[in-house]
Each structure stands twice: as structure tokens, then as C-alpha cells.
């Protein structure tokens, strides 16, 4: 696994827009998706994908792969939604396909299929909105949004340390993995499990070392119990993007109302 989302987010072309605006935009759309009709949901998917791929300049192949991987959950759940089992005598008339096993019937339910279709459009659209946040608001800026939302300081501080060291520890794990392989490790499943155990242990030991070192390193910088930092970033609002966002949301909301949704 590589943390490519993070890398792409720092290089996205909508980086200069205020992060609060981007998060708000995606959240409004997310609400519309959760409450909306499939047609509205598909429109949102298309529109936000345009923002992601065209405006933010995220490679389409990466975005598509991200959606595909996330959809795994959807596909994994499909059989449970579609296939129903019942006594043969109770088989609904609108079943799409049925196999009879003695007194039982295993069938594809029409209602299940409809549910799956709805679920499909909702999940994909919501995921697209989430992706917009992931790919256009880098984590450090997300933290600024959280601070503005008055999320407790302790949460912000812990998230900051975590974010910083996720990458350090990840790097350490990758290095250890390479180190083991270079000495012929991971040779077979049993040895592999043992090697993985060694790696996790070393990683734990190293994490504790890091803790001791970091306490010293930060104390040297005057750590007094707070992990407060300030950000310098200047964001530029863009009238064009704001106009498109507002207009689009109004149109989508209108479409939803017109189609008799429960907004």
C-alpha cells in the first residue's frame, strides 16, 4: 500500500481554494445524495467526478481504481441483498430466478434487485463526494477545518502526532520488510507468519524508541504540554468555482424537489 491519496491531495490543482469551502461543498452534496433520488445521485457522481478529474487534475485511472476498490464492499454484499431463501410454497410471484431444493426455493428477489440498484447509485455517489474531500483537501488542511469547527484540542493534537508518525512508522515497516527479504525472509507461509511477527515486534520496539526520542526532541523545542502550531497558508477564493458550486447545488436541489423527493 502506498499512501498515494495523500500525495495526490498535496498536488491537486484546487489546493489554493479554502479547505472549509471544499469540505462544505462535498458535505452539502453528500446530504443531497443521502436524501436524493437515483437520478440526482448519478448527476452528483458525474459532476463531482468532473471536479476531481478535470478541475483538481487527479489522474482518471487512479480515481477509477479508487472507486473500483471501494465498490468491492458493494459487490461483496450483493449476494446477500439479492438472494433470498424461502419455503417453495411461499415463493413470491415476482421472483426473477429460482432454484428449487426439495421444499425450499433459492431465488433472486426483485425487491432485492431494486434495493441493490438504489444502493449502488447512493454508495457510488457518496463515495465520489468523499473522494473529493480526500483528493482535494490534504490532511494538514483538514486539521485546520477541524480546528475551525471547534473540535477539542486534544483530538487535534493526537491526530497531528498520528499523521506525522503514520508515515515514519510506515517507512520503518517498509524498511524492515526489505531488510528481512534481503536476508531471505518470507520464504513460505509458515516462515512468513513468523517473520511478520518479528516485524511487528521490531516495529513496536522502534515505536517505543521513537516515543522516547520524540519526548527529548520536543522538550528541546520547549514542549510545555501543548502541541500548538500555526499555519501560514493563504487561500484564494475563486469566484468561478464558487459560482459553479452554488449554481449546481441549487439546480440539483431543484431537480430533487421537482421529482418529488423528500427534501
Amino acid at each position, binding site marked *: 500500500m502506498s499512501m498515494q491519496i495523500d500525495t495526490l491531495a498535496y498536488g491537486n490543482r484546487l489546493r489554493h481554494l479554502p479547505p472549509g469551502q471544499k469540505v462544505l461543498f462535498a458535505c452539502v452534496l453528500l446530504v443531497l445524495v443521502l436524501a436524493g433520488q437515483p437520478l440526482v445521485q448519478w448527476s452528483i457522481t458525474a459532476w463531482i467526478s468532473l471536479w476531481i478529474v478535470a478541475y483538481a487534475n487527479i489522474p482518471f485511472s487512479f480515481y477509477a481504481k479508487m472507486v473500483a476498490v471501494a465498490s468491492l464492499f458493494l459487490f461483496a454484499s450483493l449476494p446477500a441483498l439479492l438472494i433470498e431463501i424461502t419455503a417453495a410454497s411461499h415463493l413470491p410471484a415476482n421472483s426473477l430466478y429460482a432454484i428449487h431444493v426439495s421444499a425450499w426455493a433459492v431465488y433472486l428477489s426483485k425487491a432485492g434487485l431494486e434495493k441493490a440498484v438504489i444502493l449502488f447509485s447512493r454508495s457510488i455517489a457518496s463515495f465520489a463526494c468523499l473522494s473529493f474531500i480526500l483528493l482535494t483537501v490534504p490532511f494538514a488542511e483538514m486539521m485546520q477545518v477541524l480546528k475551525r469547527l471547534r473540535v477539542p484540542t486534544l483530538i487535534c493534537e493526537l491526530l497531528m502526532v498520528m499523521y*506525522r508518525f503514520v508515515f515514519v512508522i510506515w517507512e520503518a515497516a517498509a524498511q524492515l520488510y526489505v531488510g528481512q527479504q534481503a536476508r531471505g525472509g518470507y520464504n513460505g507461509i509458515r516462515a512468513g507468519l513468523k517473520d511478520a511477527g518479528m516485524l511487528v515486534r521490531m516495529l513496536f520496539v522502534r515505536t517505543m524508541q*521513537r516515543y522516547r526520542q520524540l519526548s527529548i526532541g520536543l522538550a528541546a523545542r520547549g514542549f510545555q504540554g*501543548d502541541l500548538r*502550531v500555526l499555519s501560514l497558508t493563504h487561500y484564494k477564493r475563486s469566484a468561478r468555482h464558487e459560482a459553479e458550486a452554488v449554481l449546481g447545488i441549487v439546480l440539483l436541489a431543484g431537480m430533487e424537489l421537482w421529482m418529488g423527493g423528500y427534501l
Partner: protein
Amino acid sequence: MTTTTLLQATGLHYTYPGAKEPAIRDLTLSVPAGKKSVLLGRNGCGKSTLFLTANGLCRPDEGTVFWQGKPVTYDRRSLLALRRDVGLVLQDPEQQLVAGTVAEDISYGLCNQGLPDREVKEKVQAALERFQLTELADRPLHQLSLGQKKRVSLAGVMVLSPQLLLLDEPTAYLDPSQTRRLIEELEQIHQAGTAILMATHDLELAWSWADWVFVMENGRLVMQGEPHEVLVSAEELEALQLGLPQMVALWQALPVRWKEQMTNRDIPRSIDEWRARLAMFDSRKDEKPGYLLKR
């Protein structure tokens, strides 16, 4: 600049909890203001412990640390002030960097000092420019190269305008061009009035760069002085398992009769000085100097 003493330590002893041997023992030294000092010594000789003590992170079991003549008291306020005045850059930048982005990280020390936001931002801005980090300001730390990380950790310390900068092996793992760049930055820092004390294993660097040399062995200070006093005796340095800087050894190996002809017989401290010493021989112009002498 007068050569007042910035940091002074008298009779320090410190033993890490659980350790058998003390890490520093009966250590007495004075770090002069306005100088570029290096601290030499084998691994485990107590260099790092001395740094931690200088910054107030280790409280010595015995002895006293003085900062600008006043003994360091270990209450919170004076420690905070000491840590502003004595900047410590540790070996591994990962040890010292904590925030999400470069600019945020540089602001950390300032925020700890409780400065108002506007001032913090101004100072961070200035530090970013000074260390040529402006372009990286919004980059997350994990995307930086080692050289860049080291620059950020230096910037995060220098932004507090310390009067003494302690550096623990800043050149390790740097390539020659990165090392050169770091030395240039340190030169600027020194010019701007900050005293520097650098722990290093690089004897060549010590020879060419330092104004003052400390040598530690086994928790004690065993030699100190100007480079041409400390770094020229093969026997003494060999006994400390350090060896001579190459330039010194090579100069000393030059035939005595050549050296006698020279006007300036000091051991050169840079290649340029080396050339200058020898220039008189080629200035007789019995032939065109090789192209390598051009530059």
C-alpha cells in the same frame, strides 16, 4: 564581538538511570560566544549527554551549568527561556519534527514561547525565506528528502533566534553538495551573531570550519583550543583514537626544506589556502600551471 562565555559547565557528573558508568564525569567547559566550535570524540564519549545538559534536558547529578554567567535553575520558566536561547538540533530530524507541514512545524517552537499569532506568522515567514523553504512551506514533512528535513529542523530551531546553536552530527548521511550547502547556512547563522557548537566525526570539517575545538573522551573534556593547537599532534590524537585531519597530515609530510622556503608556514585550512601557500613556487612561472589549478 567580545569573547564572553555563553555556556559554562563546572564539575558536571551525570549517570543515566540504570547505567553503571556515568555518561559525563567531572566535566568542566566554557563555550565562548561568537565562535564556531566543534566537539570531537568517539561515539559514547558523552557528547550527546553534554548537549542535553546544555539545553536543560538532563539535570546533572553534580555540578552546575551556567548560562551567561547565571546558574541554570530547573524551574519551568527559566527552562523555557534556556531552550529558546540554546537551540538544539538533534541527529535524526525525525526526532524533532512533529507537525503536518513544514510551515506548521517551524511555528511549533514559537507557539511554545507563547508569542502572539501575528508575530509567529511573521517569524515563520522570515525563516522560510532564510532557509529557502518557501516553496516547501505547505508540503507535509514525510514528502521531504533527508536534506530538506534537516533544513526544516534547523529552521525550526533558528526561528527562535537562539544565541547558541548546538548541532549533533548534522552532516551524517548528507552528500557532498548537501554538506556544502549546510556549511554555507551555518556560516550565515554565525555571521548573524549566533555561536555554534557542532558535534561531528568529520575531522576535515573540524579542521576547515572550526574556530575552537573540544575533544571529549570517556565523559571528560580532554583537550580544547584552536584547531592549530589541538588538531596537529598525531600522537595525542592517535591516543584518543581520532587521528589527524588529512590536510594536516599531508602538510606535515611535505619536505621540511620546501616549507622553509615559504613565507607563511601555517598549516593551511582549506584547499585555497593550500594553493596560496604554494603559489610562490609556481609564480616563478617556469611553466603554465596545470588546468586543475585554474579555478
